[in-house]
């Protein structure tokens, strides 16, 4: 009699555990908060913003991984800019984020060399990087943004005006 009670209890617990697991595993992804993506409007100075949702931190994802993944996502969104029907200063077509690393309070963004295809003048350079820097420095713990092109530190873009060989801050604008 006692053995059958114990077996029944074990079975009941197993069913409850399996049910709990099933419910939890079928849950939709939780919200990970929102990211504010800045872009520079066509007046060359005013910032506009977009809000995109962030994936929540995943099980097993370390703090460092999560921060880096969020920074990568932020950089990609900033480089992509707003939808094409929103008047804005966009990076040159084809510009991609090759990677993002975090060192202390600085996020280093590696851009593809497509970014070199600037139209000339300060207008586009200034607007492109202002949006990128504002977006990344909006992340917790990020105060500055370093830029590399295809993995290499550059002083400026070719024929450019903006100094890129040291991290950029919001206060630079």
């Amino acid at each position: 009699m006692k053995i059958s009670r114990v077996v029944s209890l074990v079975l009941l617990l197993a069913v409850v555990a399996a049910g709990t697991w099933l419910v939890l595993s079928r849950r939709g992804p939780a919200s990970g908060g929102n990211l504010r993506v800045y872009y520079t409007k066509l007046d060359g100075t005013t910032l506009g913003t977009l809000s995109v949702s962030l994936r929540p931190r995943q099980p097993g994802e370390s703090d460092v991984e999560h921060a880096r993944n969020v920074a990568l996502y932020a950089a990609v969104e900033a480089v992509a800019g707003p939808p094409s029907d929103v008047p804005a200063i966009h990076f040159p077509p084809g510009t991609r984020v090759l990677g993002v690393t975090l060192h202390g309070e600085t996020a280093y963004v590696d851009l593809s060399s497509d970014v070199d295809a600037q139209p000339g003048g300060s207008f586009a350079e200034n607007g492109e990087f202002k949006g990128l820097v504002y977006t990344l420095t909006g992340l917790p713990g990020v105060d500055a943004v370093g830029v590399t092109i295809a993995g290499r530190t550059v002083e400026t873009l070719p024929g450019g005006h903006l100094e890129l060989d040291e991290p950029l801050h919001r206060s630079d604008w």
Partner: protein
Amino acid sequence: MNRFTVRIGSAALALLACLAPPARADAPLAVAYGAQTIRFTHVAASPQGIAVGVEDPGFAQLLQATGSILTWKPGQRYVMVTTGVPVVVSFAIGDRRYDVGPISLEAPFAPYLVGDEAYLPLDQLLGALDLAMHRDAAGAFLVPQLTTLDVRSRGTAVTIAAHAGAPLHPRIVAQSPSAITYEFDGVGTPLAGTRAVGSGGVKSLEIVQAGTPRDPKTLVTVALEPGASVQAPRATDERDVVLAYEGSGPAAPAEMPTPVPPPPPAGSAYAPAYPGPAGNAAPGPAAAAQPVPSGPATVTGVSVTPGSDGSTVAIAVTGNAQFEWHRLRDPDNRFWIDIKGAQLNGPALDENEPDPIVSVRVRQIDPQTVRVAISLAGSKQLDVSPTASGIDISIGNEEVADAPRAGSGSIGSVVAVSESAMPITPAPLGEPGTAADASWKFGARSTYVPTNPRLIVIDPGHGGSDRGSSRNGTDEAVIALDIAKRLRDLLLAQGWQVKLTHDTDVDVYAPDDTAHQELQARVDVANDAGARLFVSIHCNAFYNAGPRGTTLYISKDIDRPLAEAIEQQTEMDGTKNDGIVKSHLYVTLHTEMPATLIETAFLSNPDDYALIVSPAWRQKIAGEIAAGIGAYAQAYPVPNQPPQ
């Protein structure tokens, strides 16, 4: 702006999960994609789908063909693919959930490791790349997909942004006053169906896939309201096309209408404690007609009124008072206004409020000052207006950058207001956020003392091997040098000493030098000479012809007065005044003296171009820059030197 996005990429959601990873299978998979064949060799097949290894040459070929990039190293849990759009597709080893940009989806099986190599679900990866894999008797093939139709309404206009995994060339195959049908050749779609729009002259969209599996076409039929106008499809990128429509009347809300704040409650947050005049509404004509008592001021009420465009905080004040307001910079979005010589008629208050406000606080911070502090839900548009019954603070829903951060005014017998980009005073003690003030942009006046106070260095932008921007055979280097020489002659006539970083069309450092060498050489000319001012002359340009105008770029605190003096002269130069822009430009950053880089006009804009190529206009703007330099020298004399 209303928006809904039709995006299908979640067929996986319909599939039941199977947590066991597929077994490794060595059978290669050949997939035709356009003219090429992609051969996957690191392939594992299972009932849940096909997995492909990220070190597979076929995987690399797929990424290259789609302009995508893999970010992953052995040992890392996360596998990121940045698509050519670009969008980050993020997989995690052992997790069926994956992300395509902000959209979270679920695959039928989780990515897994075989040795050190990550294996990803192929169908889900293809979907993120706007591709679909099909099979027929001849084998497997990839078909680009029309995956996005992003419908937005703004006023009476509607735009539909289409995006696909291949260049889009829409053709209008049927058109009548009530409908228009576009054919997108060569792309399939997972979006088949009908969607209601109901705004901007567009009733609905019907999406149909036609053609053959290997040569599909997608038909998009837009049902129109009477009187709606249709614009020609506009390609914004090879894979993006915008379809635009204009309705005959105001746009009705689309599928996801913009949230409208609820009407204000009968009694707003502060009315019971401080029953102000005219209820809670913003003061109107009746309020304006009320007499303003003289004598010491009293804050009698603070009310918050939500509206469709934001909220208004109305501070009811009787009597005469001065006020001063400040706001901190984003992301510390706090604002406070101090009403001087005023008494608070009631207890202190703390209340939370809906967007665009977070909270409002009211305090008597010292015997003579009432403070109303507002936390904003972002860098919101904010206007302070004195009224006959007090002060109205209008907070918009729209985010703004570089908003004025301080201002002052008075209420009572004399109503006045002013605002400034600079703080008038530091935040008072006890107000959180004071530390953020340390990074405010412009602070102390210059301590630079030129060793040669009569010397101005002019830097013609670019030159030699660096032509700068160029349009219709006109090089920026040539134009900048021409204006610089004209400016030099004018300044010499005014009695200045002038040095050009280069007076012929050459590199300052050396031909084909690095940007750093070239720019530093220009900076060195000014710094080594101990010049009083540095002015760099340029022409602007953009990807399209839209932007135009004159912009003065600065980097240092001491640059702004010089730029302001020049701007006052150039603002009527015939093009638009684009103002003064602070930036991280090399030459303005590294010169020790007040400096500005003047982008005189846009070579890329037809109107500006016509000015730039006119010698008379170049002489005119040179004269205006010279006049600005003269005005600056008068206003900011060098210590122990006679005025210029």
